[in-house]
């Protein structure tokens, strides 16, 4: 079946995992009809009930093949009825609240699909809400982020975005650029004289302010990515240092194979976890060394690639072997904002603290014995401290991929606009073309339309005409 906007769609709306209740949601013109098919209660059928009401009842299933048999109770449920346009999607929406856990929700979903609903694509409810005019573009992107959010903190950020922080901030940038553009356009359309130096300076200043703000927004991109996708934490070190042991400790499960043979881990192993609400993508890697084994060499090169991209690097050193120059090389490969040296196996030898002096100067160093679990808590705390350093705190409003591209292109355009104006060599109509491009891009983030506001801005500030 071809997916269509007319289909009635269904999905489990609560996050996977154990919760007290699970919700299955239906949206579309057939929602109530479908509810009639699977739900029984005292009083009128769901389709005969008003919007904004809820009713307690049971989910039924027909016994036997082809549904010819008699009905049997599957689960108890509370049904919530929302009638268009007073719903999230502005369509008819029905929600089934059933017992927590995947199993009963999955069964309700299966029944609904048998009855004619289509399985919703990821984010399809939100897309409908957007298309039906319920929320604006930025908000809909924020909702998608909430849906995809891997942690509470990311969800909070997306919620802020929904409240219009980004729209507000982008609006300020837009207005700066619009004023600069109004100055420029006025000189193009009305004044016959050359541009006065003060006007040029005014335009350049406005552009500079906007540029600073745009760069600020861009830098929040990285932060937004971290919150959306999780902080990329990479465990690295030479073979047999205890990387996989650390990895398993942090995950609190036996995920990676641990043996006494160096070169055990051959590939990247990635798992998602949270630490005090922060989303983390934890990666175990192959130990770095010279090797003739093709498989191991491939694993090492993958490890190096992960090390290079790490946000936080956990570098494990076997205290019984001690640090050497190779370690330095590996550590300097990363662009991680935080590097933590973990000196392991202190149960075997007392580490030579002198050897670690160079590391102390630049990195946190934790002494531990992973075999006994000693020091693991400290490692967690050091990671957590680094994480809160990455959380820029108050004023951030993070941007999505689409915003990032538009802002980057707009930045190029305004840089060129400023260059043309200040050089005084080239025609300023070209500068106006660049600014216009930037305005259209910034405006497209929140859906503002260019020309309506421009002339008003011009007329309110100049004495024009004959």
């Amino acid at each position, binding site marked *: 079946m071809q997916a*269509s*906007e*007319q289909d009635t769609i269904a999905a489990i709306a609560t996050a996977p995992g154990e919760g007290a209740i699970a919700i299955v949601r239906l949206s579309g013109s057939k929602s109530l009809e479908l509810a009639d098919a699977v739900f029984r209660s005292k009083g009128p059928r769901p389709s005969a009930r008003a919007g904004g009401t809820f009713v307690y009842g049971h989910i039924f299933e027909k016994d036997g093949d082809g549904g010819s048999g008699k009905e049997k109770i599957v689960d108890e449920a509370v049904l919530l009825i929302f009638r*268009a*346009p007073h719903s999230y999607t*502005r369509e008819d929406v029905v929600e089934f609240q059933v017992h927590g856990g995947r199993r009963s929700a999955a069964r309700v979903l299966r029944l609904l699909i048998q009855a004619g609903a289509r399985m919703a694509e990821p984010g399809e409810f939100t897309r409908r809400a*957007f*298309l*039906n*005019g319920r*929320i*604006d*573009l930025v908000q809909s992107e924020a909702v998608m982020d909430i849906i995809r959010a891997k942690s509470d903190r990311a969800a909070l950020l997306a919620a802020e975005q929904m409240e219009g922080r980004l729209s507000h901030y982008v609006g300020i940038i837009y207005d700066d650029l619009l004023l600069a553009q109004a100055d420029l*356009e006025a*000189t*193009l*359309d*009305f004044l*016959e004289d*050359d541009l006065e130096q003060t006007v040029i300076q005014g335009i350049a200043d406005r552009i500079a302010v906007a540029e600073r703000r745009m760069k600020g927004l861009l830098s929040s991109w990285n932060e937004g990515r971290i919150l959306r996708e999780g902080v990329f934490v990479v465990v690295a070190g030479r073979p047999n240092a205890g990387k996989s042991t650390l990895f398993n400790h942090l995950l609190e499960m036996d995920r990676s194979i641990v043996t006494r043979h160096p070169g055990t881990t051959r590939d990247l192993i990635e798992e998602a976890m949270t630490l005090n609400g922060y989303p983390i993508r934890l990666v175990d890697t192959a130990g770095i060394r010279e090797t003739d084994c093709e498989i191991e060499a491939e694993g090492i090169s993958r490890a190096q690639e992960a090390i290079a991209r790490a946000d936080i690097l956990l570098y494990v050193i076997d205290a019984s072997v001690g640090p050497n120059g190779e370690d330095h090389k590996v550590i300097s490969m990363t662009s991680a904002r935080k590097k933590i040296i973990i000196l392991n196996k202190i149960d075997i030898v007392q580490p030579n603290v002198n050897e670690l002096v160079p590391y102390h100067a630049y990195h946190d160093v934790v002494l531990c014995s992973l075999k006994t679990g000693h020091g693991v808590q400290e490692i967690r705390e050091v990671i957590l401290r680094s994480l809160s350093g990455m959380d820029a705190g108050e004023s951030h409003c993070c941007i999505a991929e689409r915003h990032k591209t538009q802002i980057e292109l707009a930045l190029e355009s305004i840089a060129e606009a400023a260059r043309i104006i200040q050089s005084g*060599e*080239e*025609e*300023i*109509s*070209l500068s*106006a*073309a660049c600014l*216009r*491009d930037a305005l259209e891009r910034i405006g497209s983030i929140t*859906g503002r*339309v*260019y*020309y*309506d506001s*421009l*002339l008003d801005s*011009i*007329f309110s500030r100049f*004495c*024009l*005409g*004959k």
Partner: protein
Amino acid sequence: MRLEYDVIVVGAGHAGCEAALACSRMGVRTALVTMEISAVARMSCNPSIGGIAKSHLVYELDALGGEIGRNADFTGIQFRTINTKKGASVQSTRVQCDKAAYSKRMLAVLKNEPMLEIVSGTVIEFIVEEDTAKGVRLQSGVSLKSKCVVFCPGTFMNGMIHIGKRSFSGGRNGEQSANEAAKNLDRLGFSCARLKTGTPPRIRASSIDFSKATEQRGDEPPPMFSSEARRIYRMFREEHLDADRTMFHVEHSWSDLMPWLPGWRQMVCHITHTNKICHDIISNSLHLSSLYGGSITGTGVRYCPSIEDKIVKFKDRDSHHVFLEPEGRDTDEYYPNGTSNSLPEDVQIKMIRSIPGLERAEFTKFGYAIEYDFCDPTQLYHTLETKLVRNLFFAGQINGTTGYEEAAAQGFVAGVNAANVVLSKRPVVFSRSQAYIGVLIDDLVTKGTSEPYRMFTSRAEHRLILRQDSAKYRLLSMAKCIAILKKETIIETEHELDEISREMARLKSTYKDGATLAQMLCKKGMRYFDLPGSSQGIGVEGALFIETEIKYQGYIERENRQIANIAKDEAVQIPKDFDYESIVALRFEAREKLSRIRPSTIGQASRVPGVTPADVAIIRIALRRKTEVVH
């Protein structure tokens, strides 16, 4: 006089003249009905054509076979290029005309058209049957029939003139207003509102002390709008290369069509300025002005403000320019550009006499403001046909615009489309990326206007492409399709275009000192003719076009990409009878606006004020659903 025509054009102003000429030149039998034949193409205000952005409209009309450019060139007394330093895309031509000659020449041109008849009379009613225009009824009682009617009444509908506290009805000072037609439109269901505009007094040249003002001369060689006037100017220059430029001893019998050689003996204008005394006189008399005294309710032009406006709204300026412009060669009248007002006569005299050079000014006419009816232009399609009455077209000031050029552009489009109805040909519509004409009409029919609409370059999103030097090349295919432009001119332009593209290819592929010639051309101050091997076959205009296209290349490519993006939306048609009310998901405001304006494409819908990107997405879905159901 016949009683039946293919097209009847009402009102021989700047819109009506273009409309009537377009129709008759397309071969349909046309009547031009107007109140006063001697007032054909009268310049109600400043006798000048062009200026920033308006000039672009004139070049475009010339490229398509319109008359306004030629008429200005042949009756021009001063020619200037303005805004030169800011880039080719905003550079504009302005021609100061001889007011009487301008009107006389246009009349001669109209009379020369075999398919065109000029009828003196006032239209009081439209004959409408089954929501279709069938003709007009004149005050004299005569009825004229036609397949289409183009209505261009200018400022004449319920025109009300204000001078100080005095007001009286009139279409222009000294001319009657046309009120019956306005009533008729109301009965037909059109929604109209009031706008206002104004004009300065006129002053006797002999009473001006020019020594106190700065001279402003025309450019040499004179920049011109029309290829025809340029050709004649060049011919003359080549024949008399060694003669003194200013001595025209050619044998030629001058006529109304060519009162003198275009560009000949330019006249001088002057600049003076207002001062503190002048501003005080105005401030102290504001309560007497019709604008500020309360008798005017219509909305005025922000960008062509009256002097009262300038003084109230820009208090910190202690001086404004006043241009002293002659109204013609053989007249003693001057036009003090910048002093438009609606003050009582005695205040006007005191105020004008406070300006340096005008201390002893004698008035020939007083300034006045005029209020008039216009019809909300969102009631029109892009062809300028009304949505309420088939085959009835509106053009010019009636659609809320101001200016001769804006009026002429609409007249041309309405005329061409009226003729196309008669000829059963497809409508002609200009897009925003094709011409300023397209921007003008799309703005009007999509957004409407709450103040007199004037053209600006900033209204055009593709300004770098829509230059005046590119007009005849970018509009060539449209000109061919409309087929008013002379065959020779089309062939000549095609030939130029061929040569230009060959030459551009050569510049991009020929290296000198490690750089292409095109790269060399991008250096500041470099001109096409400075390049090695430049071809004399490329004229001055072709050279300007090449220079600009090459210097702007990167920017033009970007605009072309944007146009290609938009083109997708412009291609998605919305049926005329599309039911917005049935889309409950649309916000109330959007539903109401879209039902009223009835955009013809998704692209146009996205430009309707108050319609958000989300609304547009909804319409898109709704359209898709519609086609899904059909399939």
